[in-house]
C-alpha cells in the first residue's frame, strides 16, 4: 500500500525580482531582489520587523506581492495560495507553529494531502512513510502522539516531516532556532546539513549572528524591508553583520560596576505553585537575591519561569513556601500591597499584562501611582501634574512616539517595553522582576533596556531577570539560576560554559539540588 505520490518538480533556483509588499502604513518589503539555489543554506538576517517573514510569505504564496515577480527554475510563477507553492516543491516552517495541538502527528502531516482512500483518511499508508522519514533523519517521533504532548523541538521536527512528506525540495525555516535550547540548536544544525546534503535548498531566517556565521553558504541582511547586504561567512564577521542589521555601529552603552552586595533583599524559601492547568509548576524553589545583584533565571520555556515571576508579583497563588522581601513575608499580601512594599514587575506578556493597549502613554505611565497624593486629590486626578510627570518619564526613557497621547497599542514592542520601564522604575523600587524584557524587541531598544537594568543594579537594587536568551543572561547576570521542571537545577556563575548551562536546562547536569527527590508528577510542559 502506498500513498499517492504526486510528481513534485525539483527546485533548482528561485528568484525574487523587485518584490514590494505593503501593509496599511508599512512598507514591509521594498523592491527586494534575491536569488536562491538548491543544496545551499541561504540565511536571511535581520531585526524584528525587517520584513523577513513577509518576504518569505510572498515566496510561499500566502501574500501576493504588490509589485515584482517570482521565478522558479527561471520561469515566472503566480502563487495564489500556499498550495500552489507546495505544488512547486516549496515548503515552509513558520515562526508561529502551524500545527493543530489536539491532533496526532500523523493527522497533522496528512492534513490537506490527497488520500488514496478518499473520502476516508488513510493513516496506515502515511504512517509507514512518516516512520521511515523520521528514522532517516533520526527524529524519533511517535506518529501517534498528540502534538500538544510534544516538546517545542519535536513539534518543529513534525513540521519538517510534513514538508518532506509533500516532497518539497526547497524549505523555508522562519526563525527555527528562536525556541530551541543550545543543545537542540546543535542537533537542528545537523538536520539542516543532512537536508542540504540530500539536495534540498534551505532558507534559514534568524537574527542570531553566530548561527548565521556557522551554517550559511550565503547571508542576506534585511533592514526596514530592504536588502542592505549580501555576503558569505568567510567574508564577514559579527560586528559587520550587527552593523548592517542595525544600520549603525552597535556598542554597549553600559557597564556593570562593583560586585553584588552581601545583604539579602529577597529570600525565596521552598516555594511551590501550580500552572494554569493545575499541574505542579514550581517545586520547592529556594534562592536568595542580594543587594545590587542580577540573578538571571535560565530555562527552556515552560519550566516554571512564568509561574515564578507571577508568584512573587502576587498574580498567582502559592501552594507553599515563603517569599521574604527585606525580612517580611509577601505571601499573604495582595498585588497593591506588594507594589507598596517596593516591588516592580515587567511582565512577560507586555501587550496584555504590561500595558492597557487602548490607554494613552500618559495613562499607562501613571497606572500604578495615580492614587498617590502626588497625582490625586481625593477622588480626582490632577491632570496637569500627571501630564507633566508622564511626559518627562517618556522623555527620560527614550520612548519614540509621535505624542504622549497616542494609544500604547500603536507603538512597537521595544517602545512599549520602555513605557513599562518608565512606569516601574520611576517609583524607586526595592526589587525589580523582569520577565523576558527584550523578547521580540529590536537591538537598539534591547541595548537601552539592558542599560537601564544594569543602571539600577549598580544603584544597589536587586534584579530577578527571567530570560530565554542565553546571550542576554550571560552578559547581565551576576549569578545564573537554572530552572528545570519547576525545580532549581543549579545556581552557577555566568562564566560557566554555555553548553553546560544548556545541559542543565534540559535536566542533564545537577550542580546543586535543593531537594533530592524527583517529582514524577510534573511533566515537562511546553508553551
Amino acid at each position, binding site marked *: 500500500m502506498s500513498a499517492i505520490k504526486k510528481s513534485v518538480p525539483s527546485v533548482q533556483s528561485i528568484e525574487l525580482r523587485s518584490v514590494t509588499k505593503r501593509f496599511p502604513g508599512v512598507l514591509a518589503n521594498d523592491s527586494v531582489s534575491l536569488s536562491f539555489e538548491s543544496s545551499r543554506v541561504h540565511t536571511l538576517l535581520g531585526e524584528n520587523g525587517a520584513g523577513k517573514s513577509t518576504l518569505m510569505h510572498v515566496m510561499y504564496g*500566502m501574500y501576493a506581492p504588490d509589485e515584482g515577480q517570482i521565478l522558479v527554475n527561471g520561469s515566472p510563477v503566480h502563487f495564489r495560495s500556499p*498550495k*500552489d507553492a507546495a505544488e512547486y516543491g516549496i515548503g*515552509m516552517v*513558520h515562526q508561529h*507553529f502551524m500545527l493543530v495541538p489536539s*491532533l496526532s502527528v500523523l493527522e497533522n502531516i496528512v492534513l*490537506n494531502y490527497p488520500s488514496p482512500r478518499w473520502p476516508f*483518511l488513510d493513516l496506515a499508508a502515511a504512517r509507514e512513510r512518516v516512520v521511515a522519514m523520521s528514522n532517516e533523519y533520526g527524529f524519533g517521533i511517535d506518529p501517534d502522539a498528540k502534538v500538544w504532548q510534544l516538546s517545542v523541538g519535536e513539534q518543529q521536527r513534525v513540521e519538517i516531516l510534513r514538508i518532506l512528506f509533500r516532497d518539497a525540495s526547497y524549505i523555508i525555516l522562519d526563525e527555527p532556532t528562536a525556541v530551541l535550547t543550545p543543545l537542540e540548536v546543535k542537533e537542528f544544525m545537523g538536520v539542516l546539513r543532512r537536508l542540504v546534503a540530500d539536495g534540498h535548498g534551505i532558507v534559514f531566517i534568524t537574527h542570531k549572528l553566530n548561527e548565521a556565521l556557522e551554517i550559511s553558504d550565503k547571508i542576506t541582511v534585511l533592514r526596514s524591508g530592504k536588502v542592505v547586504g549580501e555576503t558569505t561567512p568567510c567574508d564577514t564577521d559579527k560586528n559587520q553583520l550587527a552593523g548592517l542589521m542595525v544600520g549603525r555601529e552597535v556598542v554597549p552603552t553600559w557597564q556593570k560596576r562593583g560586585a553584588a552586595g552581601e545583604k539579602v533583599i529577597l529570600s525565596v524559601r521552598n516555594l511551590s505553585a501550580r500552572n494554569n492547568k493545575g499541574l505542579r509548576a514550581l517545586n520547592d524553589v529556594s534562592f536568595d537575591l542580594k543587594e545590587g545583584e542580577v540573578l538571571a533565571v535560565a530555562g527552556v520555556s515552560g519550566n516554571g519561569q512564568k509561574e515564578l515571576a507571577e508568584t512573587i508579583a502576587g498574580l498567582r497563588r502559592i501552594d507553599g513556601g515563603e517569599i521574604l522581601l527585606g525580612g517580611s513575608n509577601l505571601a499573604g499580601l495582595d498585588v497593591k500591597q506588594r507594589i507598596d512594599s517596593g516591588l516592580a514587575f515587567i511582565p512577560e506578556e507586555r501587550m496584555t499584562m504590561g500595558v492597557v493597549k487602548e490607554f494613552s502613554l500618559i495613562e499607562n505611565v501613571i497606572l500604578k501611582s495615580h492614587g498617590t497624593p502626588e497625582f490625586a486629590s481625593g477622588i480626582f486626578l490632577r491632570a496637569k501634574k500627571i501630564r507633566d510627570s508622564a511626559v518627562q518619564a517618556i522623555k527620560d526613557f527614550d520612548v519614540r512616539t509621535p505624542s504622549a497621547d497616542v494609544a500604547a497599542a500603536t507603538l512597537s514592542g521595544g517602545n512599549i517595553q520602555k513605557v513599562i520601564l518608565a512606569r516601574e522604575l520611576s517609583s524607586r523600587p526595592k526589587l525589580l522582576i523582569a520577565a523576558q524584557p527584550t523578547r521580540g524587541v529590536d537591538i537598539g531598544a534591547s541595548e537601552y533596556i539592558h542599560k537601564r537594568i544594569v543602571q539600577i543594579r549598580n544603584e544597589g537594587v536587586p534584579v530577578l531577570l527571567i530570560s530565554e536568551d542565553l546571550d542576554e543572561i550571560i552578559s547581565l547576570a551576576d549569578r545564573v539560576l537554572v530552572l528545570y521542571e519547576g525545580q532549581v537545577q543549579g545556581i552557577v556563575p555566568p562564566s560557566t560554559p554555555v553548553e553546560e548551562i544548556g545541559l542543565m536546562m534540559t535536566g542533564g547536569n545537577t550542580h546543586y539540588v535543593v531537594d533530592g527527590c524527583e517529582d514524577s508528577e510534573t511533566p515537562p510542559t511546553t508553551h
Partner: protein
Amino acid sequence: MSEFFQATVLLGLLTAGVRLATPFLFAGLGEMLSQRSGVLNLGVEGIMLIGAFVSFFVAFESGNLYLGLLAAILAGAFMGLLTAFVSVTMKAVQGISGIGIHILGLGLSGLFFRLTMGSISTMRGFPRLAIPILKDIPVLGRVLFNQNWMVYAALLLVPISWAVIYKTTFGLKVRSVGENPHAADSLGISVTRVRYICVVIGSIMASIAGAFLTIGQHEAAFVNNIAAGRGFIAVALVYFAKWNPLGVLAGAFLFSMIDAFQLRIQIIDIGIPYEIPVMLPYIVTIVVLALSTRGRVLGPTALTKPFVRGVHT
C-alpha cells in the same frame, strides 16, 4: 403513585423519550459540526422555527410531506448562508449575531404563519414505520423500532457524524480549521469555505429538526414559537457533549427523557403547579452546563474567533 411506575407507563415514557430526542439530535449534531469548524451558531432556535413553519406550510398546501421537508432543507440552507455571511465573511461577534438570527426566525415564522394560515390547522405527519423483525424485540422493539423514519434518520446520523469527523479527510479539515485555522490556511485549506460548508450543513440540520416538530409528529400542526427553547438546549448540548457525536446522543436522550417525564407529570396532575415540571429541562440545562465545564476538555480553540491571515489571537 404506584401506577406511575407501572411497566406500560415506563415503556410509554421511553418511547416518547426516543421520539423527543430527534430534534435534539438533528440540531445538536448540526451545531456540533458548525462549532467544530470554529463557528458558534446561536441562531439554531430561529432556524428551527423557520424549518418548522416552512415544512408545515408547504406540506399542508401541497399535501406532500416530502415536499415540505425539501422546503425546510432549502430554507435551512438559506439561513445557513446568512449566518455564515454574518459570522465568517463579516466577522461579526457570533454570540450577538446569533441572537439576531434567532429573533429573525422567531419573527418571520410568526409573521408568515399569521399572513398565510392565520389559525391552527392540522394534518397527518409522517406515519410510524415499524421495522420488521426488530420491532418484535421485547421492550427495545417498541421503544426504538416503532417510530417514524425521521427518528431513524436522526439516530443514524450519530455514527455517520462520528465517521465524518474522525475518519474522513473532510472531518480532519474541519477539526483543523476549528483548532488552528492558521495551520489549515498555511496548508492551502480555505478556512472560509470549510466554515461556510459546516455552518450551512448545521443550519439545514437545525431546519430539519424544526420540521420534525411539525410534520414529524403524528398529528402535525404549527403554533407560534413551537421550538420552545429546544434550539438553545441543542447548543448547550454540544458543550455537554464535549463536541463528540456520542456525547450528543447521550445528551439528547438525557434532555428528551426529562422532557417526556415532565409531560407525563403535567398530565397526571400530582398536585404541583404545572409550571414546575415545564421548567425542568431548562433547570437541568443550566446545572449540566455549570458542571460540564469542570472537566478540562475545552472546545475547539478557535471557536467564535474570526480568521484573519497573519493575525494570531
